């Protein structure tokens, strides 16, 4: 269980480190990327990103891994755009390890490694391996308002289908438009991402 509380808005990114006992389950192959998938448990908001290599080299990535833990570094934004209007919720940013995670939300985090430089998650991808023994919860709260995510309201809508489910992820690092159910009971994502 990880916890983070936003104290600032917008376009300043904050580094965050996940420490997981990777080596108990797998020896990371040479030049593989660590990949994280975030799934919001109440809103269904889903994104993947490449964990930032500890050597800062995306051509030959290495990570800090010892017998006790591996370090998965990401850097988060609390807003999908900068104060100047530039989009932060992009494929290129996620390939770098910069990710927009809407708040407040409790995320399920899944861990993968892969030999290619891609964000796509699908059972057919040979280069992608899930590490099923590793799963985390990441609770993100905020002490500041967000212009882009409405506060939860007290209401109830009865749905015939549960649309807050895990989806396959495209090369862009988010679900396909048809699968991206953002209007759900407890949170509303008010921006339209680049599909």
């Amino acid at each position, binding site marked *: 269980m990880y916890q983070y509380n936003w104290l600032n808005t917008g376009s300043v990114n904050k580094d965050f480190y996940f420490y997981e006992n990777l080596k108990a389950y797998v020896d990371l192959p040479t030049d593989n990327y660590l990949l994280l998938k975030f799934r919001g448990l109440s809103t269904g908001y889903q994104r993947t990103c490449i964990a930032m290599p500890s050597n800062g080299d*995306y051509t030959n990535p290495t990570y800090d891994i010892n017998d006790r833990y591996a370090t998965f570094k990401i850097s988060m934004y609390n807003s999908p755009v*900068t104060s100047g209007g530039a989009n932060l919720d992009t494929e*290129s940013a996620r390939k770098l390890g910069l990710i927009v995670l809407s708040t407040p939300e409790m995320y399920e985090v899944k861990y993968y490694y892969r030999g290619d430089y891609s964000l796509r998650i699908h059972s057919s991808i040979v280069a992608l391996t899930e590490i099923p023994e590793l799963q985390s919860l990441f609770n993100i709260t905020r002490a500041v308002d967000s212009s882009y995510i409405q506060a939860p309201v007290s209401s109830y809508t009865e749905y015939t289908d549960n649309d807050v489910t895990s989806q396959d992820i495209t090369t862009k690092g988010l679900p396909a438009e048809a699968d991206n159910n953002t209007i759900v009971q407890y949170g509303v994502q008010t921006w339209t991402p680049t599909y």
Partner: protein
Amino acid sequence: MSTQISDEALLDFYEKMDNATEEEQKVIATEFYNKYVSV
């Protein structure tokens, strides 16, 4: 650590990534990371 990357640098990075092959993207990402993110 936190940083604030300029819009100009971000947009230039996106444009380069959008027009690159996977191998070229790795190089572009490395350069951008070391210039703007890891500082």
